[in-house]
């Protein structure tokens, strides 16, 4: 066997082969057996488009408020760091540890240095793409800031990129250290709840920016205390100001802290990328597979439907919501958004009683997000870490596999949406009288059911039958576009619903009938679509 050329102990040929492999695995769609080139670009770009979209709104909101360059950079960099933290933390086991790596590469003659270098390069490419998508539009918008210079947007882009890398590597260190000390099962549970917390924080920050007094946004860091330096995003904000005419001591401290932190974090994080380390972590992550559970934690009895397909769908969804971290995390995080938006509406007074004339339309963020999460749930339940087990659907004697989703929808409705609606109802009671709040929550429930039925038109596979891939969670954010028709229907039907009395009853009845009709056709269509699916 000939020896390939080496640089710092890294085998060139192996490095190239490994990096190519990782990039192919990242950016190649799992479906479409042949002719992959056509679908390569959308697959790679979609999550980044979603991130870019959110970054764009953030930047626009800051621009219209006349934010100073310092504050603008602070918010953009904070947003970038939080999103990268979130993305890497949640998809850590996909981004860094592919359990297949150890089973396919573990017995081949690859030095840990070569393996690490390829993984590292792949990670840097991923973070760079993520960072670019998060900061490209805010960077472009930065040209229009009042205090902006020609170099400022480029510095902002550079700072945000470095901050993303530092954040990414920080997560690597954090996750690895935690995994070495606590069990993978507990860590995964912890991350699930942390993700819910982060979703709330991000959402609240988004909601807060438009409500901040413009004078605060325009003043910059002039009056803030040195304690502010503890915020990591301040360190990188300092980079953007370093070439300004009069950089103050505060900024120099911040940038200095940023440089030191970057070096330490990137170096320490880089050390974690070893083949042996990946193998160890992979084994640790597999621990969760051998956890035994008490029998009978989920009852197979269900009142929803009599068909065996519906019962099977209900039973499986119940189990997955309890046991599959990816499903649980997604559903809890999205539920948190609705609760947070309801609270926000209460605090800023936008929550009004739609049944009182001239009071409001009933349209609120809570309502909008309650529709969005329904579509997102439907999308989520196609994916699972146990996706390989879905072959069993293919060989089971099902008359209509679409009915599996009837059971799944019953779980989403009873176990997820109803508790969320109850929270929103409690918040409504703070501003709206009991009876009207009840009527409004019934409207929300009916639209939730209708959205669940409409969401079935977006489904193409058996529940929990698709493998989670990098960026899948971000892509689910794109579901927000599907809420538009439902919201239009809500605005139109609101003209009748909120007239009260008979109009209300009739409108709700019509919407329920519409849901039944939509569900009937959706399930029928789903049965045909899934039957044709050959992706096994």
């Amino acid at each position: 066997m000939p020896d390939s050329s080496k640089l710092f102990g890294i085998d060139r040929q192996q490095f190239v082969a490994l990096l190519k492999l990782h990039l192919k695995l990242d950016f190649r769609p799992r479906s479409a057996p042949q002719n992959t080139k056509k679908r390569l670009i959308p697959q790679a770009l979609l999550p980044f488009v979603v991130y870019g979209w959110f970054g764009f709104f953030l930047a626009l909101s800051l621009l219209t408020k006349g934010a100073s360059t310092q504050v603008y950079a602070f918010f953009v960099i904070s947003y970038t760091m939080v999103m990268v933290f979130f993305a890497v933390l949640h998809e850590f086991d996909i981004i860094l540890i592919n359990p297949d790596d150890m089973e396919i590469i573990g017995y081949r003659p690859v030095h840990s240095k070569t393996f690490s270098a390829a993984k590292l390069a792949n990670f840097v490419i991923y973070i760079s793409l993520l960072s670019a998508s998060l900061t490209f539009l805010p960077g472009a918008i930065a040209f229009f800031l009042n205090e902006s210079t020609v170099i400022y947007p480029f510095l902002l882009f550079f700072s945000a990129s470095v901050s993303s890398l530092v954040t990414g590597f920080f997560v690597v260190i954090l996750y690895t250290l935690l995994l070495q000390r606590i069990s993978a099962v507990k860590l995964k549970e912890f991350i699930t709840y942390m993700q819910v917390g982060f979703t709330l924080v991000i959402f609240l920050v988004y909601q807060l920016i438009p409500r901040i007094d413009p004078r605060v946004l325009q003043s910059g860091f002039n009056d803030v205390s040195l304690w502010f330096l503890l915020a990591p995003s301040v360190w990188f904000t300092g980079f953007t100001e370093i070439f300004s005419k009069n950089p103050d001591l505060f900024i120099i401290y911040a940038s200095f802290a940023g440089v030191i932190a970057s070096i330490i974090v990137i170096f320490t994080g880089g050390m974690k990328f070893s083949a042996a380390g990946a193998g160890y972590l992979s084994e640790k992550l597999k621990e969760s597979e051998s956890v035994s559970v008490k029998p009978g934690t989920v009852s197979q009895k269900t009142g929803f439907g009599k068909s065996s397909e519906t019962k099977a769908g209900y039973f499986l969804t119940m189990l997955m919501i309890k046991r599959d971290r990816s499903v649980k995390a997604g559903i809890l995080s999205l539920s948190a958004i609705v609760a947070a938006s309801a609270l926000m509406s209460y605090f800023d007074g936008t929550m009004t009683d739609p049944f009182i004339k001239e009071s409001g339309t009933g349209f609120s963020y809570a309502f909008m997000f309650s529709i969005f999460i329904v579509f997102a749930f439907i999308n989520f339940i196609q994916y699972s870490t146990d996706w390989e087990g879905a072959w069993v659907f293919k060989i089971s004697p099902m008359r209509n596999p679409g009915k599996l989703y009837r059971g799944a929808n019953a779980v989403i409705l009873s176990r997820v949406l109803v508790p969320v609606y109850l929270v929103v109802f409690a918040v409504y009671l703070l501003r709206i009288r009991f009876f009207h709040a009840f009527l409004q929550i019934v409207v929300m429930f009916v639209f939730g059911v209708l959205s669940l039925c409409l969401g079935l038109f977006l489904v193409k596979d058996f529940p929990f039958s698709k493998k989670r891939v990098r960026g899948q969670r971000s892509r689910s954010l794109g579901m927000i576009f599907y809420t538009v028709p439902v919201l239009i229907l809500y605005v139109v039907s609101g003209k009748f619903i909120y007239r009260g009395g008979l109009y209300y009853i009739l409108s709700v009845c019509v919407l329920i009938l519409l849901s039944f009709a939509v569900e009937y056709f959706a399930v029928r269509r789903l049965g045909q679509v899934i039957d044709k699916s050959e992706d096994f």
Partner: protein
Amino acid sequence: MIKLENLSKNFGSLKAVDNITLQIPDGQICGYLGPNGAGKTTTVKLLTTMLKPDAGKAWINGFDIITQSFEVKKSIGYVPESGKLYKSLTPYEYLMFTGSLYNVEQEILEKRINEFAKFFGFENQIHTRMISFSKGEKQRVVITSALIHNPSVLFLDEPLSGLDATTVLKFKELLRDMANKGKTIFYCSHILEVVEKLCDRVVIIDKGRIIGDGSVNELENMTKQSSLEDVFRQLTDAGDVGSAVAALSKSINNQGN
């Protein structure tokens, strides 16, 4: 050559491999048999350096599996039981990738890929992504990836899984030819007929320990049985299979659907 000396591996209180000593010379096909959970795959994982032993030593072509694991990896080919591969790739991409890990020159690699593809009959699928492949189609690629760098020692863990009869015949012939050329083959399987016909020597393990070692004839003579199946049944204490089947069958039929 493969050499094991008092090799042991525990998983908690379970002794997966218990003090195994064994030597397999060049040019020998050694069948490694045992019931489920006997320690076959663990032994292979130890010898392929994927696991570290708790006690004992082992050498592949004279290289210590602990201190010279890189050299060991260079000289072996392995068909794992899981048969895992990156399904998003095409066979050509996958084999180019694995060949590169052994630093096989590109020209030689391309030639070998085409030869193996022709031999195993996947030349028409060589640029099709493996996501749509059947188990047997994937297994042919897995086997090729184990042979592409022309290793001197081969570890095969249930290699015939999913293969059609023609491919099985071809592969068995290929293994015989490789053994005749001096390669050492360590063959793990549950399929007794294949082991009986293919292997020069059979090692039977149960509960991590070797309970039988010799050629098929030697084992039959030793246990006074007429077939390897009977030898296996006796040594592994499989019990009265007929009664167990009858009891289960009766129970299922009585319960209806």
